[in-house]
């Protein structure tokens, strides 16, 4: 299982703050996971489309497309940060 967290605008648009999924065998990295979520269509396709400025973290560290994702990982998707 992989835990996926969504924050801020993404959490509201997708209607959930977290979920747990079993990774299909062909999903091995962040890019693959994002594509899997986009394939759900609707808000998922809209919010996570490659053209959208979505940031991601794997196990609480900022990560980009080819970062490996495996069973037990915590993955998060969120908009560019706006603190301070």
């Amino acid at each position, binding site marked *: 299982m992989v835990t996926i967290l969504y924050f801020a605008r993404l959490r509201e648009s997708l209607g959930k703050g977290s979920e747990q999924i079993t990774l299909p065998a062909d999903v091995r990295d962040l890019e693959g996971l994002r594509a899997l979520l986009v394939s759900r269509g609707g808000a998922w396709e809209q919010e996570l489309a490659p053209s959208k400025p979505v940031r991601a973290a794997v196990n609480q560290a900022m990560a980009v497309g080819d970062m490996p994702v495996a069973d037990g990982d915590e993955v998060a998707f*969120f908009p560019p*940060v706006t603190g301070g």
Partner: protein
Amino acid sequence: MKRQALTAEDAENAEEQRRQESNHDSRLTTHDSRITLMTVRIQTSDFDVSTEITALRRNNPKIGAVASFIGVVRDVNDGGAVAEMTLEHYPGMTEKAIEEIIDQAKGRWQVLDALVIHRVGTLKPTDPIVLVVVTSGHRGDAFAACEFIMDYLKTRAPFWKKEQSGQGARWVEARATDDVAAERWR
């Protein structure tokens, strides 16, 4: 004043002294064989700048300079009125991200100790939102490290602001000028 370079031993002495004489919540971490001191707090409550600086400085005669930055909620953003805002963060990662930023600052400048307090939850215009304090032997290092920590926090620490106004609520968009501010430290 005699100019003195910071060594691991100096930092260790300062830490030992603080452990004996201070009860505040700074933690001791070992990183790259350097002794690093830092405190990161994410909280909904307000902070008292004077209390925090006093605690950070307590009984450390190595400190020659203290630089601080306070971020405050404005009543206007991108031309629109702001009645209040709600701050969301990523518990766990936010603290780690800020600790990493402080570590980087400590690698670039002589920093004795650093404190970052960032508020979350609902805030109104004039409310303080973030406090950064850096102590150092000299002002140049304190100023630079403080500004660096703030610039990196703006672009790397997972916080998100949602503003409420008469027209409703909207998520604040990230600013390109913040990326530029962070880039100049490369």
